[in-house]
């Protein structure tokens, strides 16, 4: 039951996008459609789980003064590995997300979870935390992307249901802020009880 709570807390109580407000750059940048958001979320989750596991395994071996550079090296290695695998096996997704993948390195969710959770907890719990936070990030990005896609292009997951154009502003940068802001209000209203 405790294990399940770790995952659930990543999705609701510690939702990285709507509650912790971490990783705003990829959130605003990649959510032009639901599929892009989901892809970015999945890539981040893969890195998050891998880096959480490794960091929780080696945490006692790392002198505290050099822990941040050590974490960054581990995270960067996993990001590069995910990027290479994506280019090899999912070239279409890579084409859409290409520029944002290397930026996962500096996504503060990952370093934040490494420092805040994996460095203090065991391997299994850290892996579950990575899954939970990763799922929370993926779901939020998919929802933000879906809302922007519906309003902006009149489509959902690439299937167009209106003819003509949607409200373009929601596909452009200002729409990202508007949608994120309103969804944040809604999320916190629903979870505040």
């Amino acid at each position, binding site marked *: 039951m405790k294990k399940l709570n770790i995952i659930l807390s990543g999705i609701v109580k510690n939702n990285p996008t709507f509650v912790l407000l971490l990783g705003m750059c990829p959130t605003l940048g990649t959510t032009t459609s639901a599929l892009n958001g989901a892809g970015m979320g999945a890539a981040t989750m893969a890195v998050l789980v891998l880096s959480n596991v490794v960091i929780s395994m080696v945490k006692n071996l790392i002198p505290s003064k050099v822990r941040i*550079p050590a974490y960054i090296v581990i995270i960067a290695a996993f990001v590069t590995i995910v990027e290479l695998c994506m280019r090899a096996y999912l070239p279409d997704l890579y084409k859409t997300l290409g520029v944002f993948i290397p930026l996962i390195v500096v996504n503060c969710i990952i370093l934040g979870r490494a420092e805040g959770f994996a460095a203090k907890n065991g391997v299994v719990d850290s892996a579950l935390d990575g899954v939970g936070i990763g799922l929370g990030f993926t779901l939020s990005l998919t929802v933000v992307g879906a809302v922007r896609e519906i309003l902006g292009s009149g489509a959902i997951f690439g299937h167009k249901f209106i003819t003509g154009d949607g409200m373009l502003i929601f596909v452009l940068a200002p729409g990202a802020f508007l949608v994120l802001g309103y969804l944040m209000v809604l999320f916190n209203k629903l979870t505040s009880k």
Partner: protein
Amino acid sequence: MKNTLLNMVLVLGAITLLASAGVGYVYKVTEEPIKLASQAAVMAALAEVLPPFDSTSVSEIAVDDIPVVVNTATQDGEVVGYAVETATKNGFSGEIRLMVGFDAQLRVVGVKVLQHAETPGLGDKMTEEGNPLFASVRDKNLGEMNLSVAKDGGDVDALTAATITSRAWVDAVGRAFRALGGSVDGSTGATSNVKSTEL
């Protein structure tokens, strides 16, 4: 572990070594699939913009300092068309790379966008099927028309609210045509002195 200099150097060194070994290994494993994937993408683009063909030969030239790749497609030894990988630096954001297919009479058969970073919802409409840009040049010999957007007095219908992208697209297509030895009428208008924004 204690914060002694030796410890720190050893640990960081070991982590860096292991990380680079891991990345190197994955690089080796994925090298072949990545090459295959990018070849498959080029082949798919070729098939999309060309009439049926059975083999191609490649030559690289530079037009206005921008490298252009000409794929000459042949069927039973006869030239059936050309697919030209062309590019422009005049896009609204970043380089635009196109694959333009011509038949043996240098009429435009197909245009495929290989890479771009134009505004979603505006400039990226050039990737959609049946967009006005492609409709304007389809089955035409570019030497026999005024290849510039209607706003600049030409024969190409621009994308709504994406004139800069349209001009850049025209510039790239014109470059593809020039790479095959054709000459194009009409200025593309896609110069850096255009300072209005895309909206």
